[in-house]
């Protein structure tokens, strides 16, 4: 990272040529240019071995460290004796604090993506920037949190922080996920000593940029995707920094709503700091610090025990993203998981070069997606703190679709590419743990966003709503119908809420028959909704995928059905797509299409992939599927050979 001399702006985002991490200091140079810059000797060695054609991983892995972390010893000294009961109590107490923060956010925020969608996460971090606890709200943010906190800790010198300060940050290139994801950090102090941060990340629905709702399917630069905020103080010693507020709120189409959401996030970190400070006072600083270390070590041991149970080997998987909204060509996402002993190196280097359109993932997204995939096939009760991620090293070289370079666009990376990356990690893990793996889920959040002038309220409205598709089949169970892509865990808007808020009408909400990929364990079904534009025109954009290729199957199953977005213009009775009506490159990624009153938009989500040979499916299950209308007689015959 090369900052301007006064620190006002970034001159260059320098990254490790091997793992893609930002290099803040000198790094390790092996040659000139970006290809010769590395974060650490471990990455140099990894790269050299690959160059020599050697295949064996460099183990044990060494996690990269930012310069500020050098101040902390790698092995901490014991400050207090190991106390399992205190660990247990502290862990559940801190998770409960995070949950309390989340409940406050859910109950006080203004936009539906927060309060219905729960698209946020709350966590606590220690002074080294390690995540020590988090509550289960949005998974993509949980995985992204450790990197995000560390980057922020690196950029804001601790001696400039005082009690009551709150930092705001959304820069995707600095540990972030995409611009809508705003992160608030509030440091907490006991007796004047900085002990850590309460953190909350949330999706702000409207942040300016080319389209209402930020999901610009045709973005080619970050500047199209809304306002970017480097780490800045939005509160100083408990007082609003008015200038920052005004700058931010001048750059959104819905300032009243955004203000409500930002205020709610501040309420959440305020609460987190109050609560954790009380806990530290109760147990004492030394016990607190030691217990945090013990908890992370414990989570690490649990994760190592899980990984050690899988057979060593290199497990690879790949899939494609059908287009980037700018050119109609597919992009490959690929992962090679090197499992060795109780560690995993996840290498995304075989993925396509960076796309021109917004499907690129940041390093934070790719890292979070890797964690997400691995957590899905390991013991779900492992505490989610930085410790459990220590045995996992993510390599995602810069300039790829899996680690976007400035100023490449990336808004869909967080919602579309994340689940797809998590799905291929699960797909790769199917090689060593077939019983726990799942065929691909729909893997898209649909992300149809729109805005317009509300006829009743004399106010601009913007809507970001999420739709869910089918889960993949897994051993012993069919895929669930209509569950959110695994990067998020959002609830979609009920029709009665949607129509109350927005001047549109929902005409149906129906499962899509035959959309689940055939298999011994069938994929779950996707669904469709038709939106009817009533009295005022709306401007719509979309960042989605899976309109052309259905979700992948495993072990001889079949692909799930692809989804789609169709349009019926007012006065016609024919379904078409924005490719035809507006000359767009892609039906899944486009920007600023005006839908007039009387127009209909049909949003269809994909079904999940099938697991295992369809011919092995229990005929009773097929009979029941037909009776319930999940599959047609026709599919029963053609895909399963069922004649009963």
């Amino acid at each position, binding site marked *: 990272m090369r900052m301007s001399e006064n620190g006002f702006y970034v001159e260059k985002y320098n990254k490790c040529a091997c793992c893609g991490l930002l290099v803040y200091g000198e790094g390790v140079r092996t040659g000139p240019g970006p290809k010769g810059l590395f974060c650490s000797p471990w990455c140099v060695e990894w790269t050299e071995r690959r160059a020599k054609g050697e295949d064996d991983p460099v183990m044990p892995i060494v996690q990269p460290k930012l310069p500020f972390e050098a101040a902390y010893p790698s092995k901490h000294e014991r400050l207090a004796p190991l106390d*399992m*009961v205190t*660990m*247990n*109590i502290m862990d*559940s*107490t801190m998770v*409960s604090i995070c*949950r*309390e923060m989340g409940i*406050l956010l*859910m109950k*006080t*925020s*203004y936009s539906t993506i927060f*309060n*219905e969608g*729960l698209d946020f996460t709350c966590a606590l971090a220690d002074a080294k920037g390690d995540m020590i606890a988090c509550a*289960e709200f949005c*998974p993509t943010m*949980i995985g992204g949190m450790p990197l995000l906190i560390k980057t922020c800790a690196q950029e804001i010198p601790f001696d400039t922080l005082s009690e009551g300060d709150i930092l705001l940050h959304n820069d995707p290139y600095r540990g972030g996920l995409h611009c809508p994801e705003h992160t608030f950090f509030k440091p907490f102090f006991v007796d004047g000593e900085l002990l850590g941060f309460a953190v909350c990340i949330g999706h702000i629905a409207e942040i300016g940029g080319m389209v209402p709702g930020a999901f610009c399917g045709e973005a080619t630069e970050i500047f199209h995707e809304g306002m970017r905020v480097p780490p800045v103080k939005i509160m100083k010693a408990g007082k609003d920094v008015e200038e920052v507020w005004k700058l931010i709120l001048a750059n959104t189409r819905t300032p009243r709503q955004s203000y*409500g959401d930002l*205020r709610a996030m*501040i*309420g959440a970190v*305020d*609460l987190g700091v109050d*609560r954790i400070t009380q806990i530290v006072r109760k147990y004492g600083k030394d016990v607190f610090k030691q217990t945090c270390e013990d908890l992370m070590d*414990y*989570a690490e*041991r*649990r994760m190592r*025990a*899980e990984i050690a149970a899988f057979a060593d080997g290199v497990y690879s998987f790949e899939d494609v993203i059908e287009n980037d909204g700018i050119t109609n060509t597919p992009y490959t996402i690929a992962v090679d998981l090197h499992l060795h002993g109780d560690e995993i190196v996840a290498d995304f280097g075989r993925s396509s070069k960076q796309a021109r359109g917004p499907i690129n993932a940041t390093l934070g997204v790719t890292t979070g997606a890797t964690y*997400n995939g691995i957590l899905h096939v390991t013991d*779900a*009760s492992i505490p989610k703190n930085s410790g459990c991620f220590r045995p996992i090293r993510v390599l995602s070289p810069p300039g790829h679709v899996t680690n976007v370079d400035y100023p490449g666009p990336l808004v869909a990376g967080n919602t579309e590419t994340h689940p797809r990356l998590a799905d291929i990690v699960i797909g790769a893990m199917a090689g060593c743990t077939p019983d726990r*793996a*799942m065929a691909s889920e729909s893997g898209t959040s649909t992300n149809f966003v729109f805005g317009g002038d509300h006829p009743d309220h004399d106010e601009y409205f913007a809507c970001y709503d999420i*739709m*869910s598709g089918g889960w993949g089949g*897994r051993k012993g*169970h069919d895929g*669930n*119908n*209509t*569950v*959110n892509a695994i990067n998020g*865990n*959002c*609830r979609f808007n*009920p029709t*009665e809420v949607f*129509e*109350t808020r927005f001047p549109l009408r929902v005409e*149906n*909400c*129906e499962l899509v028959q035959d959309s689940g990929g055939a298999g011994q364990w069938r994929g*779950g079904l996707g669904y469709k909704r038709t939106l009817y534009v009533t009295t005022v025109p709306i401007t719509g954009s979309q960042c989605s995928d899976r309109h052309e290729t259905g979700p992948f199957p495993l072990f001889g199953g079949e692909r799930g059905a692809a989804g789609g977005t169709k349009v019926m213009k007012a006065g016609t009775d024919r379904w078409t797509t924005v490719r035809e009506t507006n000359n767009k490159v892609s039906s899944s990624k486009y920007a600023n299409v005006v839908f007039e009153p009387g127009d209909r938009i049909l949003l269809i989500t994909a079904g999940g992939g099938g697991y295992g040979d369809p011919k092995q499916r229990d005929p009773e299950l097929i009979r029941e599927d037909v009776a*319930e209308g999940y599959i047609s007689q026709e599919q029963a015959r053609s895909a399963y050979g069922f004649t009963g």
Partner: protein
Amino acid sequence: MSHALGIDVGGTFTDFVAYDRVNKKVEVWKELSTPTDPVVGIIGGLGRYKSNDAAAVEHIRLGTTVATNAILERKGAVVAYVTTKGFKDVIFVQRGNRKYHYDASWVKPNPLAKRRHCFELDERIDAYGNVLKPLDEAEVRALGEQIKANPEIQAVAVCTLFSYLNPVHEQRIKEILTEVLPDLPISISYEVLPKWKEYERASTVLADAYLKPVVSRQMGSMRKRLDEAGFQAPTVVIKSNGGEMTLDAAAEAPVNLVVSGPTGGVIASRHVAKLTGIDHLVTLDMGGTSTDVSVILDGQERFTTAFEIEWGVPIQIPIIDIRTIGAGGGSIAWIDKGGMLRVGPQSAGANPGPACYGKGDLPTVTDANVLLGRIDPDNFLGGRMRLDVERARKAVASVAEALGQDVDETALAIVRIANNNMVGALRSVLIEGGLDPRDFTLSTFGGAGPLHVGELMVEMGIPKGIVPNHPGQFSAYGFILTQARVDRQRTAQLTSNRFDKARAAAIMQSLVDEAKAQLTDQGFSDEIKLTRALEMRYLGQNYELELTVDESTLSPEADIEQLWEAFHAAHKARFGFNTKGDIIEIVNFAVTAISDSAVPEIPKLERATSAPEPMGRRSVGYAQGRFEVDVHDRDRLLAGHVLEGPVIVEEAASVTVVCPGQRLTVDDYGHLLIDTIQA
């Protein structure tokens, strides 16, 4: 005609409490439950009623598990679901989220109707309550015939879009279907839950229809067999809101019975709070496999509309807010892959039960309590069951060895981790709900609750504790104290910037009329008390704060600004901030009507004139080490007795463990009050 009976049917025992109004005497007893036909156990228990004079019984109040079990075991009716065209899959799509973040093996729950029994009608009401597409009555009749042709179907649930704003379609559908299907019960969402969000409303009305045939059958059979047994006294069942309703009314609206028994403990706690002058209680009802936690705030129990049959399948009628966790005396201790000692969620249950019961070999919380000397193996359940200490020791030793600790240390760690699980539940109802534990008294009951009262006070920072009378039959005890209660709610959105006070007043009045009528229709006409509330939020928010208002708040002469100010203040108090000047939205109107029947007068205990005599002494393990402590018999304690911790009080159904630094005082009614003398 002076005896009131409370009966709570549990999984293992059916508890009975009788109150004699003339002699002011309380009698308690237990009978083994008969799960296949609970009425058998009830009639059997009534036969053992000491003052066995059926004619003296003026009132029977019953906690029933019929609805709870039908739902848990999915043994309700085959329901036909009827909704707006295009929307029958709402109950299958649900809300799109999942139970666990990281579990590829999770299976999404099914709704209470089969998809092949879901039907659509081509009608539509819009978000303003206007009819967009009128109901086609011929289509409804044809649908009725179609349902009639399917002998499988036993009940009908109707939920159409925006019916909470305009019920005209649902009401007409009900009329027509009743004509065509005179033998099938029909539930419509406007009557069950006139609130917005179609999935949640549909799920609630489905549950109602699903329960109607089975509840109706059991209520009918109950009346008949009580009559046959000579108990002709009016009999009511306890609703999920802690109020009572007649057997007929229960059969009509069975969704109100999903949580019946456990509400008794909360009602009894409310009464204890009143008797003892304690404003804020947090209740902890700990049994063998689960623990229920609830809050009494300002002398009132709290309600929730977030109940779920299982994750993702809501029933959104107002229910006493009881948080249940799977932790109890039978919770099993084990060591995970990271070397951490864990307790639960697996439970040894009643069979094989804790190792000390002599059948199982896995260490449980009860085993740890036995080894710590907190439970007397020779005086368990009043001596009716002898416990095997050696077996408990062997079980705990298996875990201790792996941890490299001695048995005593491990037993203590097991109890502390179990306590921590309960602290998690206490935190979630108190702190996560914005309440400060330091303002509360911890009320523990259930067989295992009083064992943990002292330590939970310490761990949770709750300064005071109480072990009420009859902790082993506390729910049944609550039933003799309950009242008839009706809650009515409706969604109707109004905003502060264009507020229509007359409309608001009219909605509130209609709810008042409905609530009153529901009580008087059941014959409850004693002094009806009304509470009115508005659920409000800033426009854009999605969760409401409930503000209690009085009759005059919406009157023509009232200054409505005061209402908005009250909301800003409530938001600040609950969430730490407010946004003055912003638009406020009223979302739901709520009315509660309570028929204030006479409340029993609880007998007082004789006053102590001398110090209490312990019945024994034994060594008991605490976090601070082992102590030789006095053991007292609760039956011999008198009002005014004071015991300094560490000390143990035993009674037939439970044991109270008081920690060092705590003090126990027996109050006039025999409640054991615990306070902290040194932290």
